[in-house]
């Protein structure tokens, strides 16, 4: 979508709030100028008028003093007479002077001029009054002109005071009315502002929210699987763009759903065909344990077993465990097979329980697969017997070979020359190796057949490590390596078959020795790990390539390219023993960083 065609939402938004901004600016300026005007005017008026009022009052006082000096003289009280008069005169003249300089009101000038004229006459009449020596003359002069002049002056000054006071009252009244007026205007503009803002907000939310609401409604519909929804594209702003993109998305989803629905149908058909063709019974169960699906083999199986399709106790326990979120039950050993008599034959089923989980990992059911392992079991037994028999048979001649070689090497029968010695030594080495292999094979078959039952005794982990160190020390130092034992303090005791665990140690240590260089350190560790004890044998050798690590415990498995002689049974034996003790064995290794074999055994109760 071209940029020019689009009215951006930001612009719409700014345009929307612009009127409000203007309104507030105008109101603000108006209010500021109003306050300024009101404040300044009242201040000036009050100051000027107040000054005139004060000048008037001064004149009144000066006049009163002068008058009292005149009256004193009249009643014959001549003491301080001149002094009081002069004082009154100076106060009056000061007031008059201030008034003359502070003419502010219309008519005030005339009143001031008149006061000055009257005062001039009063002064000259006063002069005459004081220079008149007789009492009667003074009295005549006082009542004839001086008193009238005094009253005229007082009245004029009073008039000046009155007009100034009137003006103050007027100005204050005017200011109040102006303030009322402003308040009214303010109320009006604020009200208008609020209404305009509301209108704009309404418009904005219509612009922004309506498309969003549309989208929400459609998205909700989409979530419920209704993919035919289309959002109306009402604008070419960001929201319009979003709506377009959304519509495109639903379009793609529609196509995708069509495709996946087809694929799911296909996959389901294939699964059903595969399940029907599968020879072993498969059934699925809901998380409440009710059967939801049976393949044909399971139907036949159920028919044969008869009316009571109850599962064996241990199997239903495993099933419960898986349904409660436990790990899948995937036994490999034929010992876990369940024997059933069907058609007068004993058939062994190896059960597997696989939890069905949704994407969040919650169990919603389980699949139960019953693999018919009757034949495998038989083969396994034959194999075990065969291995055992063959090993025994091999041992008799090997015993003779080995003993004969030992006898030759004693050289008590006769001396060997160096070449003979070399050959016989090589032969003895191979005889010993052959013997070890046969012993390992016999051990393993016995362990696998469960013949080597364990006698569990209580033993300290420290004692196990000590025994292992003691046993392996000669082998390790013969190769110029060092064996270091690190046993954590306060390590719990174990209930194990000490002989078998020694076997595990010896296998792991001899493995480490084989893969270490002279001068390397082999570390034996023991540490408690919640209710278990973890033992580790760590070497500094070349390490085991990651791709071979999962297979390292398999029987006869040897890392390709590993030149060490051995038949590949030592680790398998170690694993059998550890597993039989209820423990687990693991390997951790990185190329050129050595290898750590560790196994955990439960601590003694």
């Amino acid at each position, binding site marked *: 979508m071209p940029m020019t065609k689009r009215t951006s939402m930001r612009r719409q938004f700014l345009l929307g709030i612009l009127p409000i901004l203007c309104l507030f600016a105008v109101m603000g300026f108006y209010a500021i100028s109003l306050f300024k005007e009101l404040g300044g005017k009242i201040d000036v008026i009050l100051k000027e008028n107040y000054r005139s009022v004060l000048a008037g009052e001064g004149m009144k006082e000066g006049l009163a003093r002068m008058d009292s000096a005149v009256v004193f003289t009249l009643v014959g009280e001549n003491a301080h007479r001149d002094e009081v008069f002069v004082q009154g005169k100076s106060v009056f003249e000061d007031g008059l002077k201030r008034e003359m300089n502070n003419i502010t009101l219309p008519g005030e000038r005339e009143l001031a001029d008149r006061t000055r004229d009257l005062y001039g006459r009063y002064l000259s009449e006063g002069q005459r009054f004081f220079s008149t020596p007789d009492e009667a003359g003074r009295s005549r002069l006082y009542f004839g002109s001086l008193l009238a002049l005094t009253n005229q002056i007082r009245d004029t000054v009073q008039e000046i005071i009155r007009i100034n006071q009137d003006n103050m009252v007027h100005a204050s009244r005017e200011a109040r009315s102006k303030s009322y007026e402003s308040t009214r205007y303010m109320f009006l503009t604020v009200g208008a502002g609020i209404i305009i803002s509301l209108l704009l907000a309404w418009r904005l939310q219509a612009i922004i929210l309506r498309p969003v609401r549309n989208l929400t409604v459609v998205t909700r519909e989409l979530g419920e699987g209704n993919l035919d929804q289309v959002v109306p594209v009402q604008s070419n702003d960001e929201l319009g763009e979003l709506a377009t993109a959304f519509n495109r998305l639903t379009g793609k989803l529609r196509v995708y759903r069509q495709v996946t629905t087809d694929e799911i149908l296909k996959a389901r058909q294939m699964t059903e065909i595969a399940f029907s063709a599968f020879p072993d019974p498969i059934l699925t169960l809901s998380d409440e344990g009710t059967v939801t699906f049976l393949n044909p083999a399971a139907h036949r199986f159920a028919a044969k077993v008869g009316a009571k399709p109850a599962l064996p106790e241990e199997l239903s326990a495993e099933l419960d465990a898986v349904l409660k979120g436990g790990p899948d039950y995937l036994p490999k050993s034929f010992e876990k097979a369940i024997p059933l008599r069907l058609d007068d034959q004993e058939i062994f089923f190896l059960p597997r329980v696989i939890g069905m989980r949704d994407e969040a990992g919650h169990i919603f059911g389980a699949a139960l697969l019953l693999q018919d392992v009757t034949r495998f079991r038989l083969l396994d037994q034959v194999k075990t017997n065969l291995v055992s028999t063959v090993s*025994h048979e091999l041992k008799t001649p090997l015993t003779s070979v080995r003993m004969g070689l030992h006898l030759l090497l004693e050289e008590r029968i006769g001396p060997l020359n160096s070449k003979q010695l070399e050959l016989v030594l090589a032969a003895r080495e191979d005889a010993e190796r052959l013997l070890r292999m046969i012993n390992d094979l016999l051990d393993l078959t016995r362990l696998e057949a469960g013949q080597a039952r364990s006698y569990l005794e209580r033993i300290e982990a420290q004692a196990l490590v000590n025994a292992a160190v003691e046993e392996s020390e000669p082998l390790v130092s013969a190769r110029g390596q060092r064996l270091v034992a690190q046993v954590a303090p306060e390590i719990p005791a174990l209930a194990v078959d000490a002989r078998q665990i020694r076997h595990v140690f010896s296998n792991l240590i001899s493995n480490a020795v084989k893969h270490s260089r002279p001068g390397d350190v082999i570390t034996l560790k023991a540490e408690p790990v919640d209710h278990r004890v973890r033992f580790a044998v760590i070497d500094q050798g070349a390490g085991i390539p990651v791709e071979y690590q999962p297979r390292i415990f398999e029987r006869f498995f040897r890392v390709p390219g590993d030149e060490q002689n051995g038949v590949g049974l030592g680790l398998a034996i170690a694993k059998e023993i550890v597993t039989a003790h209820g423990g687990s064995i693991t390997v951790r290794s990185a190329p050129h960083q050595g290898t750590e074999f560790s196994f955990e055994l439960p601590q003694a109760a």
Partner: protein
Amino acid sequence: MKRILIIDDEPNARLNFRMALELEGYEVSEAPSGAAACEALLGELFDLAILDLRMPGMDGLTVLEQMREEGMATPVIIVTAYGSVPDAVRAMKLGAIDFLEKPLRPDDLRRLVAEVVERHRADYRERTEREDFATHLRAAKRQVNLQNFTLAEKHLQRALEFEPRSADALNLLGVLAELGGDYRNARKYYGRAIRVRHDHEAAQQNMRRLFELNVFGATEEPLNLGD
């Protein structure tokens, strides 16, 4: 010169054994089967018989039984193959307490042969025995060979007075108790032996066997008398 009879159906095994022993100055005869052995034993006197347990026809234990029935007290070393275990109690009751497991080295054979021969040297039997641990232990073993189990037990008790912490003696006492059907005491002695020496293989094996007899009613562990 001590005379030894090797009873084994494998000619090569007999050859090896004979070579190993002749170098030590023993006079060695061979019997290729149980029947031949019985015949040879009737004809001559031997100081020791080395008896292979597994033979076609008459097996080792049957030969031993026949020997004892005929009144022959010749001490016997029983040779077993790895993993194949004799009916230990039966062997023991017949006075056999020395076992060799195949495959073996010449020195293993010679050491055990020398021990058994030494145990039965005439002068020990005639002379008043010296009072020490080794002598009593040796005498105890001899008495087991001769099937005098009560006497054997007495010697062991005496041996323990000198060395109360001898795992070997304790273990043997356990074996004797077990032979007499006294499993409680047997367990006690084996337990003491293991406590004294944690890695005492023989006592551990015996304890395990007793445990298996208890728990499973059968066992494949041999009775182990120690070195």
